[in-house]
């Protein structure tokens, strides 16, 4: 296992270098002119701006030198300047990160808990209607476009029924809690402001469900399969023979072991969550990185798009690494590598 961990840790910077190279390639792909990915079209006729951009990104030098300059800028946290907001892309992303983090974590909670619940129910009622129902519900979640389920659920729960608030993170009348983490639910609790907390939570329910539903299927499917696997083993029979109640057998004996493979999939579902967050945020006008990416793409704001892509890939890689390591530690039976 030690070798595996070391190998993964060594691979990490190499992969990040690969990601940066792809980003470099992308910026050169843009309309066949890397300048187009740095300078807004309107500014192209302004020699001063063009000159400054060329110098900052080394575009007047050879390709290998440009690559080095690009990497150096990246390492310094310089992702360029957004055409749209006229601010550093890194600053924009930093400001919007907490909103996305809050949404993704909430969705992960929803997805993981309901996924495990659905999986256990499905395994317990194997091949009965509750099993089929649970599987269908999960499958719909992974087949439904989140930008559509978001719209429909928003319409139903906020307009027709009036149970939940409309899009956004807070009511227009509610002020954001003092900044600590940038996640409104946590910050409002830290400030002891219960009313803001409830408001933030209400706003979080629908997008977190929409996003969580998308990964519920992946998780419940795996939990069901590994529960069935575990339930057929002898120690379960032993537990039953010793008179353990069904709930005890399911939760204490079976689920514990069935959860080990689930760990990987929770990390893996992170990819789906990032993917889904991009679209969910757009529907719920959630001011996170996802809606930033979409707004940037819509206005062909290249520095912003490429910047978000790099940050997204880095987050994705780190999540995968953490999952992988957690898995290696949680399951001593497996000696990876």
């Amino acid at each position, binding site marked *: 296992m030690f070798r595996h961990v070391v190998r993964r840790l060594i*691979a990490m910077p190499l*992969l990040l270098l*690969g*990601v940066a*190279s*792809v*980003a470099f390639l*992308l*910026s050169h*792909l*843009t*309309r066949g002119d890397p300048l187009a*990915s740095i300078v807004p079209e309107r500014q192209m006729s302004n020699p001063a701006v063009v000159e400054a951009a060329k110098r900052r990104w080394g575009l007047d030098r050879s390709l290998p030198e440009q690559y080095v300059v690009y990497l150096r800028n990246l390492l310094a946290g310089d992702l360029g300047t957004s055409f749209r907001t006229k601010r550093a892309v890194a600053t924009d992303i930093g400001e919007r990160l907490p909103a996305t983090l809050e949404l993704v974590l909430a969705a992960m909670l929803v997805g993981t808990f309901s996924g495990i619940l659905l999986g256990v129910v499905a395994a317990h009622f194997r091949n009965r209607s509750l099993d089929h129902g649970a599987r269908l519900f999960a*499958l*719909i979640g*992974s*087949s*439904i*476009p989140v*930008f*559509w*389920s978001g*719209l*429909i659920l*928003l*319409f139903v729960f906020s*307009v027709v029924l009036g149970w939940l608030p409309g899009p956004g993170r807070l009511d227009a009348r509610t002020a954001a809690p003092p900044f600590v983490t940038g996640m409104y639910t946590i910050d409002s609790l830290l400030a002891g402001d219960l009313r803001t907390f409830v408001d933030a939570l209400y706003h979080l329910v629908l997008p977190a469900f929409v996003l969580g539903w998308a990964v519920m299927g992946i998780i419940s499917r795996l939990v069901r399969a590994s529960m069935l696997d575990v339930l*057929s*083993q*002898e120690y379960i029979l032993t537990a039953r023979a010793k008179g353990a109640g069904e709930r005890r057998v399911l939760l204490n004996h079976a689920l514990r072991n069935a959860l080990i493979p689930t760990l990987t999939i929770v990390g893996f579902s992170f*990819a789906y969550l*990032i*993917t889904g967050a*991009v*679209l969910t945020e*757009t*529907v719920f006008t959630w001011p996170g990185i996802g809606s930033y*990416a*979409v707004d940037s*793409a*819509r206005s*062909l704001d*290249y520095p912003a*798009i*490429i910047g*978000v*892509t790099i940050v*997204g*890939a880095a987050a*994705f*890689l780190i999540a995968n690494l953490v999952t992988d390591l957690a898995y290696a530690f949680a399951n001593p039976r497996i000696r990876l590598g």
Partner: protein
Amino acid sequence: MQLAPPATAAPGWLTLPVMVGGIVVAFWVVVALSVELWSPHAPLEMVARRLQPPSADHLLGTDALGRDVLSRTLHGARHSIPIAVVVVIAAVTLGALLGAGAGFFGGLVDDAIMRLVDVTLAFPPVLLAMAVAASLGPGLENAAIAMIIVWWPVYARLMRAQVLEVKEREHVEAAIAGGAGRFRLLGVHILPLCWTPVLINATMDFGQVVLLAASLSFIGLGALPPTPEWGSMISDGAVHFYQWWIAFGPGLAILTVVLGFNFLGDGLRDYLDPRTA
């Protein structure tokens, strides 16, 4: 340890989910092929007052330009289905070729190809597709190219693993002893045994490609207006949020297509690869 159950009659491939999935997919394929002939209205024709709710004349209402939403939804199949076919076939071909090459030749070829796979898979799919599509410029063709770039590594990995496994089997050794050349070995003795997981994955991925194509169009990087593409129709629906029917039809279309392919893929997996069922 539990013993394997005795071999009973094969489960048969025609299970209920496969049937439902097959019918749904067949429905959309038929629609894509024939909708021109029987569609109530042309997709770009302004046929009624704008933003009319569903009625007997217009089952799914009309959109902001007075076009019939049902007709547009049906015509959407003419964009979504072909693009999924093209993307999946291209990604499978490219990925399988590179993956097979990596697994068969090993060494430096393997390293080069697999590192490329690793890096591509390091990106969250939608973000990479968005970045590539945006760099190439909006449009359905560029979106397709972006999706192929996102998807081929999955198949490369699958194919490589298969080839590595099959390569070690005895019949391959026998073929080598019999003097089979490298390409004959790969083409005749190895590849034909590698397709099952690739095929299962491809079936499931059809739905995912439809979903991603619609997502890119929803964002504004795929099909451009006034093309009746499902994703861009939902994007119209998001603008006219209170006229829920504009987005309803195209969303349902995407859901049914994706669900259909998922059912089919599931059934195919249970049938072809009972180990993982």
